[in-house]
């Protein structure tokens, strides 16, 4: 068949145009921004070129706090949600009645507006003058004393934060893991059973190796997603995350761009590039690790 150069480019034109303006150009631009020191958004002028923006961002206590929060969220939610999702998926794949019902329920958080449900979480956990809230009621039942999870101590806020994050990311992980488990050839299990393997051994020697690519996929995307945490935080603690001490790196980027600190695209660019560098490094390490460890690719 003859080549249709012109026609092909015509079909591609809209995509290229949009990607060029909103993807490629910004990518170059963000690097430029990040090295323009003392950039003034109003006059569009800057005083020099250098790494000053990075220095400023890295020494900004708000950024350091955001960095710390982000790392804590990542370190807690990624392993917990993945492990927990694996347990639930194993449970799901070992039952027949009600399986569909459970799967449907578990998937619900995926299709809900995280801002909206975040409000519900806030109400469940919040302690106000009128009520200690649902969760504190439970704590009291078991003999503990009430804590304000939304405006109280740091660890309490972090707990809600991680709990909510896990609640939000679970549907995707459960779904992916259940379909991975379902796609393992049943003959392996039959063979193992005939050979008299215990269920623990079957899990370690057959199931886990077979689904290890999926698990690593989830870990990698989990890391990437958790590093970009932001809107869940807003849902729980409001837009002024710095005041709540619960800001994240992405939150810091937006705050620098707009919001209360208002209009420093250079700092935002520097922070975004730092985030990208972190995510890139972690993903790279993950991939190298998984290449060595994943047994069945």
């Amino acid at each position: 068949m003859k080549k249709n150069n012109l026609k092909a480019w015509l079909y591609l034109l809209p995509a290229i145009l949009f990607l060029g303006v909103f993807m490629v150009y910004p990518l170059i631009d963000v690097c430029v921004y990040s090295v323009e020191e003392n950039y003034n958004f109003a006059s569009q002028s800057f005083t020099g070129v250098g790494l000053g923006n990075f220095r400023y961002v890295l020494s900004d206590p708000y950024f350091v706090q955001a960095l710390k929060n982000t790392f804590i969220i990542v370190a807690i939610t990624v392993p917990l949600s993945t492990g927990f999702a694996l347990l639930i998926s194993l449970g799901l794949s070992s039952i027949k009645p009600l399986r569909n019902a459970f799967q449907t329920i578990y998937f619900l958080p995926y299709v809900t507006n995280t801002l909206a449900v975040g409000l519900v979480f806030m109400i469940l956990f919040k302690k106000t003058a009128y009520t200690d809230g649902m969760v504190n009621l439970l704590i009291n039942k078991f003999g503990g004393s009430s804590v304000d999870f939304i405006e109280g101590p740091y660890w309490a806020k972090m707990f809600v934060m991680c709990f909510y994050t896990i609640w939000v990311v679970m549907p995707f992980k459960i779904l992916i893991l259940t379909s991975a488990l379902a796609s393992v050839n049943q003959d392996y299990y039959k063979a193992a059973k005939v050979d008299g393997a215990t269920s623990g051994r079957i899990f370690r020697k057959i199931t886990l190796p077979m689904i290890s690519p999926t698990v690593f996929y989830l870990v990698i995307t989990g890391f990437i997603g958790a590093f970009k945490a932001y809107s869940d935080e807003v849902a729980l603690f409001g837009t002024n995350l710095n005041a709540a001490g619960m800001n994240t790196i992405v939150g810091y980027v937006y705050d620098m761009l707009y919001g209360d600190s208002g209009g420093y695209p250079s700092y935002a660019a520097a922070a975004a590039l730092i985030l990208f560098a972190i995510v890139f490094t972690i993903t790279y390490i993950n991939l190298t690790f998984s290449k060595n460890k994943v047994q069945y690719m």
Partner: protein
Amino acid sequence: MIEKKSASLSRVLIYVFLVIWAVIVLFPFYWMVLTSVKSFASYNSEYIPRFFTTEPTLQNYADAFTTVPLGRYFLNTLIFTVATTGLMMLVIVPASFAFARLEFRGRNLVFALFLSLMMIPTELVIITNYVTIVNWNLRNTYLGLILPSVTSVFYIYLLKENFEAIPDELYQAAKVDGTSDLKYLVKVMIPICQPTVVTIIILKVIECWNSYVWPRLITYDANYYLVSNGIQEIRENGFGRENTPAMMAAVVVISVPLIVLFLIFRKKIMAGVSRGGTKG
């Protein structure tokens, strides 16, 4: 015998475990519906919250629509979602078709470039996009909300893979019968790939309905708020802060469309997501 007993015991444990998680997932939904039908007075009088109400009221729903422009937020989100999804299909379908079906110089190179863009996080480009939209004077406009999200390299990739799975013979048969490329795309390829197309539309609709960050940057006029921004606005300024039942009514109203959509297209959505959607 003993083995049988332990098997049924572990079965019970599995169910208990699964039910606990189901409760954790469902409880917030229950709580939001419950709170939304409690009257303001009775809610505030419950120091210890009650798990049911004997006098349900719909007053909060009326408040949610009258005290804040919830209807407006809804309409905005609807316009935003439909326009973004529609425009995106117009952009990605021809692009996927070109990659899958047309032969042209530089196809592999361009496709590789497209793929490499998949690695770029939104957070990195949002800064310039914000500046671009501000410079184009598109803040507080639908256009400003929509434009940056009408392409998705991932969906182009997904659709292209699907298009390529259609046997060449169908194309040849159509060629011999004098079918133009465009007609082949519309009459044959899209109908055959309908499941994927529907999946992409649904995923994009979910993404649009829940999008928060970009609209927040681009709109400060409440006339252009989407539901997510509306929720945030309600939380911080609406209902005099403490009218939790009205707030919950708004949350219910916002959550219902997607949940209904999900319950209708349950299988399609779950299959689509498991085939390669990550949230957002």
